[in-house]
């Protein structure tokens, strides 16, 4: 029953609220950009280049979060074979891909004025590139393998293997010497970012998460429709 009920519910909710979500996104995004570019203070060492953080950090969070979801969904998918789950993961993949790309590019722009170099192959940066490659592999598996069953299996395996990369990204800065600085926001202790900078960071994170949600809902709707069309063709 869950199988038939859930996607339709999500789609009807999407149709109802998507415009409200978009309006909310515009408001939050404008607030976030104004706050992070104009209101928030410069950093005591880095000056204004710290403002790149307001794009870089939320993008990285979302890139990792999306893959964590894809990985866990892949495990559940291989065990229980519920058709709804791969569609959720598949809809999320391009979002994670774009945000990991944004994270890498903005990180590079941030590296030049602070470290003095665009790119280094330290553990954090390298593991982030590996995440990007996993996204590409995952998306390509869906794109180029024609049979749904087969694509589902291959992409799930890619998702599960890629899951191992996530703790490596997260803890690379603690396990090894890296040029990238350690995390400012951790679960165990207070953030080492001043609250005047933490507020715009939180707003920007919220707006990017909202953007991801909107794109995800749109993509999910399309994926479900595709499945329905294929089913209809079969029964004709």
């Amino acid at each position, binding site marked *: 029953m869950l199988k038939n009920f859930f996607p339709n519910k999500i789609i009807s909710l999407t149709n109802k609220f998507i415009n409200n979500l978009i309006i909310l996104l515009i408001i939050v995004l404008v607030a976030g950009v104004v706050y992070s570019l104009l209101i928030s*203070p*410069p*950093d*005591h*060492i*880095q000056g204004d280049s*710290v403002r790149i*953080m307001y794009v870089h950090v939320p993008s990285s969070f979302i890139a990792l979060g999306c893959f964590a979801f894809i990985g866990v969904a892949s*495990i559940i998918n*291989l*065990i*229980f074979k519920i058709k709804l789950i791969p569609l959720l993961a598949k809809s999320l993949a391009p979002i994670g891909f774009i945000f990991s790309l944004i994270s890498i590019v903005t990180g590079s722009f941030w590296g030049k*004025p*602070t*470290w*003095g*170099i665009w790119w*280094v*192959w*330290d*553990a954090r940066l390298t593991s982030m590139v590996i995440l990007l490659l996993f996204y590409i592999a995952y998306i390509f598996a869906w794109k180029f393998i024609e049979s749904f069953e087969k694509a589902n299996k291959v992409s799930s395996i890619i998702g*599960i*293997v890629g899951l*191992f990369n996530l703790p*490596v990204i997260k803890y690379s800065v603690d396990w*090894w*010497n*890296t*040029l990238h*600085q*350690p*995390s*400012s926001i951790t679960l165990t202790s207070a953030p*080492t*970012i*001043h609250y*005047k*900078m933490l507020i715009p960071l939180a707003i920007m994170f919220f707006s990017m998460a909202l953007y991801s949600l909107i794109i995800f809902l749109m993509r999910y709707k399309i994926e479900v429709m595709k499945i329905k069309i294929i089913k209809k063709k079969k029964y004709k």
Partner: protein
Amino acid sequence: MLTKKVKSRIIFLVLALLLASITIFTVLKSLEENVVYFLSPSEIYNKENISLDKKIRVGGLVKKNSISRNGETVSFIITDLKNEIIVSYIGLVPNLFSEEKGVVAEGKLKDKKYFIADKILAKHDENYMPPEVKEALEKSNN
């Protein structure tokens, strides 16, 4: 509640994941020397038969009052608060390069205490605050 098929899939996946994590752990452990981006002065000090011809990176803090400039040449001391290395470099340093801040130097060792760098990178820490907060903090510390 779980069917036999589902159960066997779970067991298979758990075993596969366990095996994969052990493999990845050992690979990373054996690659450790390549994974670290730089060595600290103490690591260089404690390392036996270190190559003087190979390019390496040294990282740590720039020691207070150790920076001296002579024309284009910059020399300073990298410390990890236990051991120190004197670094000499010709060229421009990044904006964030300063005393008591993180630095990574790329180049070759002359000996275990002397390093000729051909690239200097600044490493910053995870603390972000406005300048006036930093000033207030320093005042209250003094």
